[in-house]
């Protein structure tokens, strides 16, 4: 897919929100192309790779951005931070709804069950290293998964993650550390397969 270059590349997200609120259509397109790939990827990671659901969440998050644009107060938060927070909350709601329905996501808060879950185990055996990672991420407790994805996949700094998850920086450090330890444990036994994948 080849989208036109960002014509407002020098304009910060916050200013684009204000421009959108004032009726600028180009600002809406620029914001969409700038934010959506990151939000979609993040939602996909949190939702276990379910693209359709990740698209729904991303569209809803962008809808909320358009809705609140007239009331946006510059200087209070970065637009991307706000958007990540919305996606996090929407994904949390969906994961909880899944659990209530007894759906696929049943091990999010019980990583110790991951190795005993046929779905995850079978996927880790059969899939490539990204699928294995996705399965391991899906098996992480919710907050650990959010922190690990934001820190190590989205590449955000701990203070920004703290704002997104509405916790302290120390709690972020603790979550990412525990998350990585859990990931390492979940991916144990897959090392040979992963090394082969790199070769």
């Amino acid at each position, binding site marked *: *897919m080849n*989208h036109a270059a960002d014509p407002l590349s020098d304009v910060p997200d916050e200013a684009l929100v204000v421009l*959108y*609120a*004032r*009726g600028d*259509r180009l600002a*809406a*397109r620029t914001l*969409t*192309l700038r934010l*959506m*790939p*990151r939000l*979609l*990827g993040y939602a*996909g*990671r949190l939702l276990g790779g379910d*693209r359709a659901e*990740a*698209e729904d969440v*991303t*569209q809803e998050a*962008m*809808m909320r951005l*358009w*809705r609140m644009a*007239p009331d946006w107060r510059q200087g209070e938060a970065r637009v991307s931070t706000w958007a990540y927070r919305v996606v996090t909350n929407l994904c949390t709601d969906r994961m909880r709804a899944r659990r209530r329905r007894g759906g696929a996501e049943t091990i999010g808060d019980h990583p110790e069950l991951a190795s005993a879950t046929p779905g995850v185990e079978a996927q880790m055996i059969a899939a490539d*290293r*990204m699928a294995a*990672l996705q399965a391991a991420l899906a098996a992480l407790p919710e907050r650990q998964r959010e922190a*690990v994805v934001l820190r*190590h*996949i*989205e*590449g955000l700094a701990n203070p920004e993650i703290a704002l997104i998850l509405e916790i302290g920086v120390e709690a972020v450090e603790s979550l990412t550390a525990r998350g*990585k330890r859990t*990931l*390492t*444990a979940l*991916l*144990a*036994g*897959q*090392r*040979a397969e*992963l*090394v082969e994948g790199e070769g």
Partner: protein
Amino acid sequence: MMMGKTELDDLLAAAGQAQMEPSEALIARVLADAEAMQRPLPAALRARAPQPPKGLWQRLAEALGGAGAMAGLGTAVVVGLAFGLLQPTSLSLVTGGYMALENTQTGTDAELFPDMTLFLTEDQG
């Protein structure tokens, strides 16, 4: 065998490089939402558009309380001018009936506002 820390970091970094590209259909839906929710230019901003400067009378009317106040003021001015410019008629036309006795003796009209000489005149006995 446990997975090494560096390998996990590499795997996570590789995952970060593999972005999930939004489809054209999703972009179209999001932009349609944006357009549907975009408000027209707010009235507050329209009011700030350049406007011709206010004239003297408009500013004066606003200072005095609006068009109603200006109308009342204009009426007062006209009435004042009328009182000042119109030639007063003889008082006798109005008061002649009431002051007939006094006036018939002197043969003059009543003087409601006598000049100062009346008060300065001393009785010579």
